[in-house]
């Protein structure tokens, strides 16, 4: 083990990854801004669903634009390797802050980027082909510890393998759900569209997708299958880009997977880039990047703990009773992607002892996206119920009681109530404990 931590490898892969990551995040920020989503998602809503334990994260109003600008700036600085440690820390903090503002916008790939950025703060991705290394020849190194590059690979492998394991369930494999619902919606695409009218195509996509997720990490790790594997990465993610509204994620994964290629490929990439912008590439610099000993002492266990947590989080759902897809207790941060067609309806009634009663029009308080997300996720239903309690208490209701008429459909089954309609949610508290007021779905989805 300690021998492994002594091994060195080329600094080029990390440098290429740093540049790609910085530019992609910069692109995402620009895209978000251009589409007007900063306003729609972070300024317009009257109420924000913070994550449990992160209630201190507050929306910034018009300053949200500043936050995005800072994030974009940090991303560019990371790409250039300019003041790298500061910039990467800034990138992690700003990006993560944005994601913590409102749970309704949670996407696995944002979490992926947050975690990658967290690792990047501590990795010597600026050791070569960076402004920092150009200015500081002591920093400039052709080699970095091997575990640094391997950490990025390991994280990507975990993501794929967990995404694959999550597909090993009866809905995905035996019912071809939810692809069976989603694919016919794309039957008006040119050329391939008509294929989606056939059920067998949904089965084929489900099984191939599952095999892809489970095997791609090993195909990329193995020298002999790497090129084929990378071809599969490109095809798979481009296909998902055509079929589903998943934004930048396909491109992020396509670029990230480059990290598996050997150093000569990365040296070539850097050589080409250096020629373009006419700077010396110095990728073969003789220096070796070495962490100070006391830093290594902290860093090694920290990375080990990080990966242990990452390996454990997707399985925390076993600590909760009931159906995971239904209650979503332990669902997030687990690389469960594209697994559910879930739609819900939640109509709240607020009343008090004096006979005041009102059925809430959710659109008065929530955006369409927020309402959609809230209606299928019990923790958000509870947060919203508490917001309504406080709102109507201020409106003169005396100790308002909040009840919900909820109805949720999952993967093509007809809807059923999600929450016990007789529970006064204003008295229930959020915690990591099981929520006893979530009703059973009446069916079981077998598998992981």
């Amino acid at each position, binding site marked *: 083990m300690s021998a492994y931590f002594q091994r060195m490898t080329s600094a080029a892969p990390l440098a290429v990854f740093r540049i790609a990551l910085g530019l992609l995040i910069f692109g995402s920020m620009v895209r978000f801004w251009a589409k007007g989503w900063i306003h729609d998602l972070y300024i317009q809503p009257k109420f924000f669903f913070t994550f449990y334990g992160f209630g201190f994260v507050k929306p910034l109003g018009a300053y949200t634009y500043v936050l995005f600008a800072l994030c974009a700036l940090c991303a560019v600085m990371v790409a250039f390797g300019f003041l790298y440690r500061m910039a990467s820390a800034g990138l992690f903090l700003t990006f993560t802050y944005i994601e913590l503002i409102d749970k309704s916008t*949670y996407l696995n790939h944002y979490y992926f980027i947050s975690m990658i950025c967290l690792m990047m703060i501590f990795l010597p991705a600026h050791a070569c082909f960076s402004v920092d290394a150009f200015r500081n020849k002591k920093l400039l190194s052709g080699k970095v510890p091997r575990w640094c590059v391997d950490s990025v690979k390991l994280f990507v492998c975990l993501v794929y393998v967990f995404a694959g394991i999550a597909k090993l369930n009866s809905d995905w494999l035996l019912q071809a759900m939810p692809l069976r*619902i989603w694919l016919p919606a794309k039957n008006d695409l040119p050329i391939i569209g008509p294929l989606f009218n056939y059920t067998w195509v949904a089965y084929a996509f489900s099984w191939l997708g599952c095999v892809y997720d489970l095997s791609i990490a090993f195909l990329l790790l193995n020298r002999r299958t790497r090129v084929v594997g990378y071809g599969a990465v490109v095809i798979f993610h481009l296909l998902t880009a055509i079929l589903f509204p998943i934004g930048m994620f396909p491109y992020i994964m396509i670029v990230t997977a480059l990290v598996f290629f050997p150093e000569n490929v990365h040296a070539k990439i850097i050589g080409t880039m250096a020629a373009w912008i006419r700077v010396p590439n110095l990728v073969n610099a003789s220096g070796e990047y070495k962490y100070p000993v006391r830093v290594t002492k902290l860093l090694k266990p920290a990375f080990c703990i990080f990966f242990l947590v990452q390996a454990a989080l997707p399985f925390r759902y076993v600590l909760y009773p009931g159906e995971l897809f239904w209650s979503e207790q332990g669902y997030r941060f687990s690389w469960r992607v594209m697994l559910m067609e879930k*739609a819900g309806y939640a109509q709240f009634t607020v009343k008090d002892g004096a006979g005041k009663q009102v059925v809430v029009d959710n659109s008065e308080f929530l955006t369409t996206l927020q309402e959609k997300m809230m209606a299928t996720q019990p923790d958000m239903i509870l947060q919203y119920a508490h917001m309504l309690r406080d709102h109507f208490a201020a409106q003169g209701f005396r100790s308002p009681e909040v009840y919900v008429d909820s109805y949720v459909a999952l993967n093509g089954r007809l809807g059923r109530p999600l929450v016990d309609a007789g529970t006064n949610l204003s008295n229930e508290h959020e915690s990591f404990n099981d929520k006893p007021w979530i009703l059973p779905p009446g069916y079981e989805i077998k598998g992981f």
Partner: protein
Amino acid sequence: MTKLNKITALGVVVLILSACGGNNGDPSPGENAKDRKPILTHWADNIIVPSYAAFKGKFDVMVSKGDAFATAPDAASLVAFRAAWVDAYAEWQKVELFEFGPADRYTLRSFFNIYPTDVNGIAANISDPSASLDLPASYTRQGFPALDYLINGVGSDDQAIVAYYTASVEGPKRTAYIKRLTSRMNTLLTNVITEWGTYRDTFISKTGLDVSSSTGLVVNAYVLYFERYIRTGKIGIPSGATVTTAGVPYPEKVEAFYKKDLSLALVKNATLAVQGFFNGKDVVTGTEGPSLASYLDALEAKDAASGTLLSTVIKNQFSEINGKLEPLSPNLTQQVQTNNQAMLDVYAAMQKMVRILKVDMTSAMSVTITYTDNDGD
């Protein structure tokens, strides 16, 4: 994604799929029923456009009778105007659900049917003929509900109503307001109908299911209309099912409150229109064509436990609602005051329907309601 990427990816996928030795025969008729273009065409040509045409016919009669009344207010012209207003209001219920595309652009519903009407606001507008009718605050001072007050509510009987309009100083201002309202409605309606002439081709060409697709627009508008304007507006608010203060409902908030005996007929008409649309009922011939029902059947949307088709579940629920509406008094205000439980029963049946339409139907169809990125959780 760039166009080049898309084409490359499509090419690769086609290669893979044909390598799988796929079924190359023509899709069976069952598969064609999953195509959305025939549905959109049927909606536009056989339901939406002819419904507007039928409404325009009744509406024009109302406008001319209104003009005749304004020119010479007397008992006979009042009765004729009122009868034409009833016909037009009833026919309006068959087009109010089409609040997407042109109607959405002109926010037709906001100017035609927001109630309860604002009596003091109407009085203010009568004295100020230049008062704006465009602002949201003016929604409750115009449209059918304002006309309801103006021809049914300004006096205790027809004689008193006619006297209201023949008063020497105020009378002409009042008749002028009626003309102002009807001509404004006419302009808006004409705009919407004209625009459907060009919008029709756009409508049937947007065959996707994303948030800007025609099916997406229609389904979202359809469900919203049923939930907010039929269930809540026509039944929920008057009966106190959606809001009460100290346990007291709001019987005076029914639709066509001043006409008194029309409110039930309007709910029934609106519900029938929504039901007919679900079944793809051609409004001219009465035969059923491609529809939400046929599309759901093609997708094989059904209750997993019983095997009942989702379309059947929805049709049964429509029957249940109609059955609960049947015994109600024509005057829903009276119904609330005498036996409100019957109103609450209608509300409950409609509430069940809202859930089915909003959740089961949209989920089975994979209709998108937001435009942001999503990874399917």
